[in-house]
Each structure stands twice: as structure tokens, then as C-alpha cells.
């Protein structure tokens, strides 16, 4: 049996020791003597969050299919263990072998949200790996970043040896083979990084130089070596049917956030919402074959013993075989103690019928994400949902016995006016009125309960709104107050509840999302000041960040308060996602004209991804 990295004494005094012992069902243990490459995959947040992430499960499975590779996992130690590891100088270890992460060949870190950046430094620090890539030697693992935040890797560029741009299924084999052959040839770390940079999709930050203009904007972004391409192309899987998918995902002992089988049904989204980064960078939409999905559902339930299965995609209602898949799951897989959990589907007769079969109508709620309250504002962000559609869906749901409605919106969108903000509670009030008008008193299950949640808009790279300005925290709060006051003035205020997001976190997320390389010093500084787990409100301390920015001479407003000009060189412009900058500019201008662009199935908007040669771009031509 594996000897644990931590003593009984430590494990007995920390919370949830099960986070650190490995040994989970379907976790992979290999004979290290038979292995050529050790890869440690990290999600820089607590175990229960990290274990719920599908991407790591996919890569873990894919790597471990290779006989010469052993892929293991590591997550952020909770602050109680963090303190012990620091104090006793115990190196952070991977779960499977319980051996130090620093002994691995690669440390891959998935970057799912900006607020995990201090946790990236925590993992490096506890692993006793130098935080700065330039201080690492042949003795240290190659540190790779991947995931959505790599679409602007610049704020964390100093901490990574390389970034992988795009979907992991494509180039990793080549990267590992290159590593193995160069190691056998006795090549240096620098030589390997130079060769790696020539692979498609691989970005080695140390091989590029950035210069700045006097006003602080970027003057040039150029490779230091002429063998290295000035642009890095996003990788994506064009044949999802052949792509590996984990038939035996790891089953945690403790309850993870996602304690169920997750079935990915498609990648990408046809909708083209202008605020949504995933909707742009995962283009084109590619569906998985329904027969394969049915097989996977059965296999994965059997191999894990999970009691629940859920579908994953950016917009499940747009999956063309949804009805067939869901009917199969409900009829063939459901029952026998297996729950079907449906993602937020478009509310219509079909989805309500399915929901009635798999959920308790009295307890469940229906969800709409109009994202903006007024039609004008929805046109700006290209959210196709109309008030008529929402009211029609709500009427169907109320007639079916539902009385709980959740509504999601954003505040702080470009061009937003007071009227747009007030339209949010007005819409909620309309829905409440509809309930009281259409459901007779004797058929009501109490009051209707409408929950409005607003987050504050953060402009993200590679979206048509990437040039937009943000606002100071107090401005966000005052916009939330406009909504809150309007809710209180509504006729049906007793049926409406309003929640809003914190403003400080929004501003910081905005700085990190669109920052450049200079922001990295502040991330390092704030980590040295003790910041970790910024994604957790109980640990987030904006004051620390403000002092770190001040000490590094960084003006946060430069990154948030400016509306960027369309010809400015943006820190992420060197990445080629396939979606052209011309398309994004066109969409920005369309947004300013409050004009809607049809979805990919309705009419091609010429975004540029057609050159990948597949997906929705070629659907009607088959």
C-alpha cells in the first residue's frame, strides 16, 4: 500500500484529510519503473472544486492511456494544510504516488478563472518550484498552463514555461514525444522550450519580447528568435467521435461539487453572445454523435456507480439530437436510483415535459438567463431571448405547476442606461403578474418566487466587447441599488428576491482578464503578502491587491477604465483563435448600433473559423 506523504498526526488535525490521500476508485497507479514521463495535472483550487472539472478528467484519461506516461493529480491545499506544509517544509505531493510534485517531468495547471492566479503561485511555492520560469533549471518540472484563461496568458506569463492554446486532445502527444526524445539526447531545458515553441498551439512566453509606448499601451510584441512564429494558433478537435473520453472517471470519496457522471454533448455554441468568451473561442460548434453518447452514459454509470448523470455543453438546447438523447436517458438509464440532471434548457413544452419526469415540480425551479433587462440592451449583447419567449415559457411552466423562477442578468454592460437597469425588475414583475393572472387561486402552490441575480459584466479577450471600459466598484454598487430600489417599488415585490455580486472582485477580475505582462509583478507581490483562495469570499482581500498594485507602480484603472481604441495592440493579439479580429470589430460596431447578428445555423456571420474545416460551418452542406 502507498505510503502517505503526510503523517497521521497531520492528517488527523486538518479538515477533510480525504482530500490528500488519493486511492479513489478509478484513480490510476502505475509502476514508476516502467514509466518514462511523469505528468502532474493541477487544478489550483480546493479538491472538491478541482475534482469536478471535466477537462482534467479528459486529459488524465488520455495521458494514462499511454504506457510510457503516468499522469497524476494535485489540488490546492486548504489554508490549514498550507500553513503546515510551509512551516514543516513538506513539499507538495501528487495524490497517486504521494511523491513530491517537483520530481515530475511536467506540471500542468488548468486556468479556469482569473481569481485562481494566487493559487497557481501557492502550488508552485509549496511544490518548492521557483515561482519565476526564468529561475527554473533542468531539475524542475516544465510548468504548462492550459484552459480558458490562456486566451490572455500575459499577466501570468512569467510563471509558466509554456502555455497550451486550445483543446488538449490535439498536440499533447507530440509535445510529450518531443520531450522524451530530447531528454534522451541530453538536450537542455532551453533547447526543449525552443523546439516546443515550434509545435502548433504552444506558446513559450520567454521567447517573446513586449515593448510599450509612452502611454502604456503595447508598441510591439515579437518573438526573440526568428524560428518562432509571431502568432500561436489555437488547437481544436475536429473529429470529436474519435477523441478519447474518460469511460472510467475518478470517483472521489468526499462529495465533490460535481458528484455525478458528466456527459459532454457538444463543444462550442452557435449563439454568438457578444460578452461570452467561450462562445467565441470554442468555435465552431461541434456535436457528438448521439449513439456514442448513449453508450458512454451507460458505461460511465457502470464504471463509477454514480447516482446521477448530467449533460454538459454551452447551450444544450441547440444540440440537434437532444430530444433523442434525453428520451433515451429518461427511459433507459433513469429509474433504478439514477437521477437525470438537466442543464439549463430553453423552457418549452419538451423541456418542461422532461423536467416533470426527472424532478419534483414542487421543489424545482425554472431558469432564464436574459442577461439584460431591456430588449435594447439584449440587442447590444446579441442575446436572442425576447420578452415574449420568456413570458411564453413562464406561462407554460406555471400551467405545469412550477412557481419558482430564477432570472440571471448582468449590470455594467456597455451603453447601459438607468432604463436598462430598471427593465430588470420590470421583467420580474411581469412574470409575477403572469402567475397571478393565469393560475387560479385554488391551484396555486403558494406565492410565486422569483429570484433575480445580477453579476457585473467583465469584458473578456476575444469577445466583441473586449474593447469596452469598466467602472469603479462604487458605480457597480450604485447600479445594483437602482435595481434593488426598483424591485422595492414593484407591485409584486413580495414575490421577488434580488441578489447581486460583489463589486471589488469584478474589478480585479477585469484587471487580470485584460492585463499585460506587467501585471504579473503584482500577482507575485500579493501572493508574498499572503493572498490565496481569492475565489473564496472568506479569503478575498481587495485591500491586499490595492497595496500590491501600488507597490509595483501599476495603475489598475489603466486596465479597467479605458475604452480601448480599435487599433490598439492588445496583449492577446498574438493568439490566433480562428475568429478574426475583423469579425470581432464588426460585432463591436454592430453592438454599438444595437443590431443583432443571427446564430451560426441561421446564417454564417463569416467569423473565420470555417477554415478549420468542420462543425456547424459545414452542417447544411452534408
Amino acid at each position: 500500500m502507498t505510503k502517505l506523504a503526510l503523517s497521521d498526526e497531520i492528517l488527523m488535525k486538518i479538515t477533510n484529510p480525504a482530500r490528500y490521500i488519493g486511492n479513489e476508485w478509478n484513480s490510476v497507479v502505475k509502476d514508476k519503473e516502467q514509466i518514462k514521463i511523469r505528468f502532474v495535472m493541477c487544478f489550483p483550487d480546493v479538491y472538491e472544486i478541482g475534482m469536478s472539472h471535466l477537462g482534467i478528467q479528459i486529459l488524465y484519461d488520455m495521458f494514462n492511456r499511454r504506457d510510457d506516461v503516468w499522469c497524476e493529480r494535485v489540488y490546492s491545499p486548504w489554508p490549514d494544510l498550507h500553513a503546515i506544509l510551509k512551516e514543516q517544509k513538506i513539499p507538495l505531493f501528487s495524490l497517486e504516488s504521494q511523491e513530491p510534485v517537483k520530481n515530475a517531468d511536467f506540471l500542468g495547471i488548468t486556468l479556469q478563472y482569473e481569481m485562481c492566479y494566487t493559487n497557481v503561485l501557492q502550488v508552485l511555492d509549496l511544490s518548492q518550484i521557483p515561482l519565476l520560469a526564468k529561475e527554473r533549471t533542468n531539475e524542475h518540472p516544465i510548468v504548462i498552463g492550459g484552459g480558458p484563461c490562456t486566451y490572455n496568458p500575459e499577466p501570468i506569463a512569467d510563471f509558466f514555461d509554456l502555455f497550451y492554446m486550445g483543446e488538449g486532445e490535439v498536440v499533447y502527444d507530440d509535445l510529450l514525444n518531443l520531450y522524451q526524445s530530447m531528454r534522451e539526447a541530453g538536450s537542455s531545458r532551453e533547447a526543449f522550450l525552443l523546439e516546443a515553441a515550434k509545435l502548433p498551439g504552444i506558446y513559450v512566453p520567454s521567447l517573446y519580447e513586449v515593448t510599450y509606448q509612452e502611454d502604456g499601451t503595447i508598441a510591439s510584441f515579437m518573438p526573440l528568435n526568428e524560428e518562432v512564429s509571431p502568432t500561436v494558433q489555437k488547437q481544436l478537435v475536429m473529429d470529436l467521435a474519435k477523441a478519447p473520453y474518460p469511460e472510467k472517471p475518478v470517483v472521489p470519496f468526499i462529495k465533490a461539487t460535481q458528484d455525478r457522471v458528466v456527459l459532454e454533448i457538444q463543444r462550442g455554441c452557435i449563439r454568438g453572445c457578444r460578452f461570452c468568451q467561450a462562445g467565441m473561442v470554442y468555435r465552431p460548434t461541434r456535436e457528438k454523435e448521439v449513439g456514442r453518447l448513449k453508450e458512454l452514459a451507460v458505461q460511465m454509470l457502470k464504471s463509477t456507480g454514480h447516482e446521477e448523470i448530467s449533460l454538459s455543453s454551452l447551450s444544450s438546447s441547440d444540440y440537434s439530437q437532444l430530444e433523442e438523447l434525453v428520451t433515451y436517458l429518461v427511459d433507459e438509464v433513469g429509474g433504478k436510483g439514477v437521477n437525470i440532471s438537466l442543464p439549463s434548457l430553453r423552457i418549452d413544452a419538451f423541456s418542461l415535459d422532461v423536467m416533470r419526469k426527472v424532478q419534483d415540480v414542487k421543489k424545482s425551479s425554472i431558469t432564464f438567463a436574459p442577461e439584460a433587462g431591456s430588449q435594447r440592451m439584449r440587442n447590444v449583447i446579441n442575446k436572442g431571448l425576447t420578452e415574449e419567449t420568456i413570458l411564453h415559457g413562464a406561462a407554460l411552466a406555471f400551467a405545469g405547476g412550477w412557481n419558482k423562477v430564477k432570472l440571471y442578468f448582468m449590470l455594467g454592460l456597455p451603453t447601459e442606461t438607468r432604463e436598462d437597469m430598471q427593465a430588470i425588475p420590470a421583467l420580474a414583475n411581469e412574470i409575477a403578474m403572469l402567475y397571478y393572472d393565469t393560475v387560479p387561486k385554488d391551484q396555486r402552490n403558494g406565492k410565486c418566487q422569483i429570484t433575480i441575480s445580477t453579476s457585473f459584466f467583465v469584458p473578456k479577450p476575444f469577445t466583441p466587447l473586449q474593447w469596452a471600459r469598466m467602472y469603479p466598484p462604487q458605480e457597480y454598487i450604485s447600479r445594483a441599488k437602482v435595481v434593488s430600489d426598483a424591485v422595492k417599488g414593484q407591485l409584486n415585490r413580495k414575490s421577488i428576491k434580488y441578489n447581486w455580486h460583489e463589486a471589488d472582485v469584478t474589478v480585479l477580475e477585469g484587471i487580470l482578464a485584460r492585463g499585460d505582462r506587467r501585471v504579473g509583478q503584482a500577482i507575485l507581490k500579493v501572493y508574498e503578502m499572503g493572498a490565496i483562495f481569492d475565489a473564496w469570499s472568506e479569503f478575498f482581500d481587495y485591500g491586499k491587491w490595492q497595496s500590491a498594485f501600488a507597490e509595483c507602480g501599476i495603475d489598475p484603472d489603466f486596465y479597467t477604465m479605458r475604452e480601448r481604441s480599435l487599433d490598439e495592440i492588445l496583449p492577446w493579439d498574438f493568439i490566433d483563435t480562428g475568429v478574426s479580429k475583423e469579425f470581432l470589430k464588426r460585432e463591436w460596431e454592430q453592438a454599438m448600433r444595437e443590431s443583432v447578428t443571427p446564430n451560426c445555423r441561421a446564417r454564417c456571420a463569416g467569423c473565420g473559423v470555417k477554415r478549420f474545416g468542420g462543425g456547424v460551418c459545414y452542417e447544411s452542406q452534408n
Partner: protein
Amino acid sequence: MRAVVSSALEEVSVTKVRIKFRKYGVMKFIGHLDMMRYFQKAMRRAEIDIRYSEGFSPHQIMSFAAPLGVGITSDGEYLDIEVETSRSSQASVDALNQVMVEGVEVISYKKLPDHAKTAMSIVAAADYELSCKDGYEVPASCEAFQEALQQFFLQPQTVMITKQTKKSEKMIDLKQLVYNWHIQEQSGKPVFCMKLSTGSVDNLKPELVLDALYQSMGLTYDANAIQVHRCEVYTKTKQGFLTLDEMGEVIM
């Protein structure tokens, strides 16, 4: 007292089943509630035809005999389930062990009489062994502990100690709740073997008992130095203590 072997082809009539398992190694860090979740998923993986409750969110009919604290290992853990149909005991044990992680081993799977009460409701006693962990020392010699055990526990008529509960503290008499207590010597270190009252009425934790002995010797009990191991769990009948699986029958 051996379990009676029932006749074959009784598949449909089996409803109540008692499963005995071991918990060892790193699995001692998995708490009771997570062990329940673990077995729920394991039942599905092993395709045990377990019975579900009625209602909108059916759950498996499953109950554990006596929760085991985090850090404690065991050779005698029990859980009861109800099944719709069953394979033989041997086939079921094999199917379950195919889907166990290292650190959990299913030892037996036996049919209970239809009127049998759940293990949880009939637990009366458990055997424990408390030994010194590798890398630690106990603060006295085996002889000193033997002598102290005589003085503190074996000779007196009553041994009153204070038991802390969540809300209050109360005095209990160890003579009433400790059915057996002796010390074995292993590689020069003592192993404390005890049979203690267990269950919902008078549950006694072995650490409390050993702590009382240490206190009588003027020593400080260091929980980090001691590995607690549960050996077996019993119910009480007219014939005396019976292990919980002695009342089940092997399914052929």
C-alpha cells in the same frame, strides 16, 4: 457456532443481507458518511440488486452497524442492506471485492431472517486493540501497565470516570461497561485489548478507557501515538455475545 447453510435457488426470497468488511490502510481517513456514499456507489458498480426506498428521490436501503471514527481501522465492520434478488454469498463477495479500493475488503455477505432487526439496533459490544504506532513510544513499560491495570481496573469493585458528552458530563462505572481488558506484549510494547459496551445506549470509546488508565498512572495520553483498531462487533443474546454475522446464513 457456525452459520447454517441454506438451500439453493432461494434467490427471490432473500431480502435482508448483512455484509461484513475490513477497513484498513489509508481508508481509515474516510469518515462514516463518506463510507456510506462509497458503498452506495460500490453497490451499483457491483450490480448488487439492492432495494430502493419509494418516493421522488429513492435511496438505497442500507444501514451501518456502528459508525467508526476517523483514524480507526477495523476487521469487523457491518452494514445491512435489502435486496430484490441475490447471487450466492460467494459470488456477491467476489463482485463487491472487484470494485473495492485498496483498504476496504468485503469478508462476508449473508442472508438474514426476514424478521431480523438491523445491525444498528442490536449492537451491544465491540473488541478493540490499541497499539503504539511506528515511530512513537509509550511512556511506560509493559510491566508498569500490567501493574497499573490490576490496580486501576481489575481489582476494584467500581471504577468511576467522567464521560464528556456534547452537552454535559456524567460519571460512569467502567466495571459495568468494560467486559474484558487485558494487555498483550508485542515487540516489547503493550497492546491494550478490550471488549467495550457499544451502541446507542452505552457507547464507550476505547480512547477514553485508555486515557483513564494513563491518568491513574499520572501519564498524559497522546492520541497521536496510539492506533485504535476495532476487531469485531457483537450483539448480546441469551447465549452471550454473538458476532453480528453469526446470525446470518450463507447463500449457496
